[in-house]
């Protein structure tokens, strides 16, 4: 018999070429290579042949089969590519459409700046101490050399509670200084702490709120003097404002719980309703400080001839306003969402000295 391999090949290749899609191509495959396909039919005829003819015919049929399979594969790849192309074209969307809304949270400036302050003083070995907002007369006044009749008590504009303790009304702490007293009464010297927290005074106007935030600092050992006080606070201010050129000034002042006492000013420029820290010829008070008064040391059972050191108190809200240009203290506590978003900090902006306090 003779095998019309050539014409079968031509038929197959033409059919493959005509197949318009994968399904049609598969039909072509079945019609040639399937169980009842033309090539399979040829193979079945081999059985009736013998010898060399059979060998030769087998070779030709296998060649034909390989050729068709190759063609099928090529055509399949081409059709798949075209189909993918068409799908991609069909799947196209307008990628300029806005994304799904996500809520953006923020950290309040008071929390952020408190952490900045903690990070800086940590570098100088200060631990973070805490004390209660509701205080008694002893810790807030008496032990801080502010006896009952002291005129400076009037400066404190104290909130008193209806409740009393030992015959005296309880109060809301007017400063974070009572944490000094609690720390020194509870532990043994040396002490090196800062104490941030809420403080309260009967005061409410453009620049005062009945609640505000302070950070107290206390360093007690056998050798710390005013030079250390200055060095520590100058280092702090330069680190906090992230500038080595901040002008600073220490003025004698008065606090019942320190002697000598000082106030620290930083250089600034005022004008056009703006305040720029670190330049200009004006001064701005940022904190009160001094050497811990001997009477305070005695009140916490320390011998002022043996132990000495400094304390300071600074307004957290105030330095937050200065560093970040927040104009109005009252807005800190209004929880206006727009304000919180604008002045708040990203949750991952954790202040560290290694990575920088702020971005």
């Amino acid at each position: 018999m003779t095998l019309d391999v050539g014409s079968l090949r031509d038929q197959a290749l033409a059919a493959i070429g005509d197949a318009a899609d994968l399904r049609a191509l598969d039909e072509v495959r079945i019609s040639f290579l399937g169980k009842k396909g033309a090539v399979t039919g040829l193979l079945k005829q081999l059985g009736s042949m013998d010898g060399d003819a059979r060998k030769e015919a087998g070779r030709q049929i296998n060649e034909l089969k390989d050729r068709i399979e190759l063609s099928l594969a090529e055509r399949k790849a081409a059709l798949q590519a075209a189909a993918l192309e068409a799908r991609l074209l069909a799947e196209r969307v307008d990628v300029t459409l806005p994304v799904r809304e996500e809520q953006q949270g923020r950290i309040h400036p008071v929390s952020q700046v408190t952490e900045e302050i903690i990070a800086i003083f940590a570098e100088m070995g200060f631990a973070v101490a805490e004390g209660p907002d509701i205080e008694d007369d002893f810790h807030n006044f008496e032990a801080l050399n502010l006896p009952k009749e002291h005129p400076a008590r009037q400066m404190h504009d104290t909130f008193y509670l209806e409740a009393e303790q030992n015959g005296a009304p309880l109060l809301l702490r007017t400063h974070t200084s009572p944490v000094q007293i609690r720390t020194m009464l509870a532990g043994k010297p040396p002490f090196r702490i800062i104490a941030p927290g809420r403080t309260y005074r009967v005061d409410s106007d453009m620049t005062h709120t009945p609640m505000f935030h302070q950070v107290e600092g206390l360093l007690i050992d056998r050798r710390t003097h005013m030079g250390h006080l200055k060095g520590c606070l100058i280092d702090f201010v330069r680190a906090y404002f992230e500038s080595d050129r901040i002008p600073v000034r220490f003025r004698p002042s008065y606090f019942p719980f320190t002697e000598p006492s000082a106030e620290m000013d930083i250089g600034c420029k005022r004008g056009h309703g703006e305040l720029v820290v670190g330049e200009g010829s004006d001064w701005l008070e940022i904190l009160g400080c001094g050497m811990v008064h001997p009477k305070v040391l005695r009140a916490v059972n320390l011998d002022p001839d043996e132990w000495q050191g400094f304390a300071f108190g600074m307004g957290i809200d105030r330095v937050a306003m200065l560093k970040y240009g927040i104009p109005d203290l009252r807005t800190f506590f209004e929880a206006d969402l727009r304000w919180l978003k604008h002045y708040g900090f990203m949750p991952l902006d954790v202040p560290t000295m290694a990575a920088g306090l702020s971005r």
Partner: protein
Amino acid sequence: MKLTLPWLKEHLDTDADVETIAKKLTDLGLEVEGVVDPGAALEGFQVAEIVEAARHPQADRLWALKVRSVDGIHSVVCGAPNVRQGLRGILARPGLVIPASGEALTKATIRGVPSEGMMCSWRELKLGDDHDGIIDLPGAPEVGTPAVAALGIEGPVIELKVTPDRADCFGINGIARDLAAAGLGILKQRDFAPVAPETDAAVRTEFDFQPGNERACPLFVSRVIRSVKNGPSPAWLARRLTAIGLRPISALVDITNYLTFDLDRPLHVFDANKLRGHLRLREAVEGETLEGLDGKVHRLAPGMTVICDDSGVISLAGVVGGVSTSCDETTTDVVLEVALFDPLRTAETGRRLGIDSDARARFERGVDPALVLPSTEFATRLIQQLCGGRAGPVQTTGVVPDSRPRIQFHTAQIVRLAGISLERDEIETGLRQLGFEIEGGPDLYDITVPSWRHDVSTEACIVEEVTRLHGYDQIPPVSVTKMSAVAPPVVTPEQRRRSDVRRQAAARGLLEAVTWSFMPEGQARRFGAEQPILLRNPIHADLAAMRPSILPNLLQAVRRNVDRGLRSGGMFELGPRFMEAAPGQQRWSCAGLRFGELRGRHWADPARNVDLFDVKADVLALLTTAGAKIETAQISTDAPGWFHPGRSGRVRLGPQVLASFGEMHPAILAEAGIEVPVVAFEFDLDTLPKPRTKAGRNKGTLAASPFQAVDRDFAFVVAEDVTVEALLKAVRQAEKQLVREVSVFDVYRGPSLGADRKSVAISVRLQSQDRTLDEAAIEAASQRIVASVVKATGAALRS
């Protein structure tokens, strides 16, 4: 405290200019708040004379003047109505800046007549509102006199913030003493020489204090001055008082005000002819009244010191004088009072009556007892100078107290506390100039504190004195270094945990707020305070109670934001809430809420309001951040009453409540005036299990199974009151080893299930740690799961 430069110079011989003085004052601890020099703008303005005044040829209302200055004759065109030949006023020459306009004067030609200057009005010089004409100086001052002198401008005014300890610097003499000690001049003393009596007129004074109350007035000095003539003060005195903000009244009254500021010595003058009988000092009696010079009638009470005559109370000692015996223009005989009053009683009296007088400010801080008699003489002399009169003898009741402390001062304290060493000479000179008496030295001094320095009592005070004279800026700064190269953590685990919770809440899209620690009393009661912690003196009724919960403050913030048009959002606060009125009875609490739409209208997804599962997710995430093991936590439905009773829950670990969450109660929202949905959570951090401190850093080995996991779905029909939590618990307990995860993918209710029933569809992932599960094992596990759920919940497997 205000003073003027010329006034200061009566106490201090100095060439220093006002800038130098102001800087030194601040360096000394007398902080300068401002320096205003009303004369500074008048530099170059001079007295000139109108030598010829003719009508302007071209303009009816103008004058063409010839004005003589020290430089010659100038042509000046002027429109003032009060122009006349011979008038001496203030001439501004071209180039000078007119204070009122801020613009420089230029030469001009006005309708053909050249104008080479301007004769000024008070208003143009910014010295008053008078614009009726040009300044017409009385007394023909010399041409060329600077305007500042001719107009009697007092000079630069310095405003100081005097700290309450520096009582002595409430007098200009005290300020001058500090400056002299700092090397800025030489201190001058007022004329304290005794004024010889010319009459023996006197008023008897007696003390009538209960035993133990003698401190109310240890010393009272009086002096009668006869035949005075009261009237307006001379210009210099009126000018000086005006410059520091006081209103001149009459010479006698102005003199008392003058000494109050000049010598920190408040005193009083009674009209002797209005006094009835002799003077008596005693404690006030309940219900007595005094019509004060402040124009108010004060109701007096025991504890207040009063001066009386036979008519009753005539003056409130050290606080305010009375109208009935006050001096006026008809006064001819006066009784001068110079006394010491107890600072504490004075302060208390002033506070109780709400009187903030200059006298009170000084007596309550303490005046100089040693100055009582000298200042009596100075006051007498001044009264005689300005009002004439014959003085009687000085009548003294009580004694001049001397309670000057003595301090043993070790020089070593200077280097110990201030970190600087000072020369012996600097220490001694400085202290002596401040009025300290010093003996001994150089290592140990015996120091007597001056009678006017009530603030100095310890060695540390002396260190401050010598250090502030030396200058705080001269102390070399020394850095404080940490005690080890790599320092241990300085925040406690609790503090760290609070920071982490804050940042996690913010990362979940909540804005951190900080709100008041206070709230209205009603809110405190509504939110769990059975006995609200109340303030005696709240700033506002809405801020009267300490908050037992943060939520009400956040709800108020929601209302404010909604009012501003911000109708959705989320915020939280982490801060104290107050349990009891006692120190330490407060907790660190975290509260948060979401309100309005969680998602607005969007092209991809439908809009959706917040629901309680949003805040349940928040609170579980925050508790996890805080270190709580929420895998083992249960949810109970007993949240506090401010939540919706059917849509709220508590997260518990057995009996311990970790947190509450849910929809806010509609009644609470209605009360707060909020019309958008609000879901909220709150929890205390202090009562959570303590964060781990030491050890246990090892995370353990991961035991991830290498074998195939299979998922099987089940749908159970249960009674409505069976919780999904109970159902899931039954699933987990059925196959503790194989059940890896269980999720709920549908909850269905419908008529086919019957009333009060629901279908809960769950997907369970099964995986073995040690083998591939075959069909038989999976089937066995499924059956155990179904059996467990059926037994625990009465469920039926949905077919």
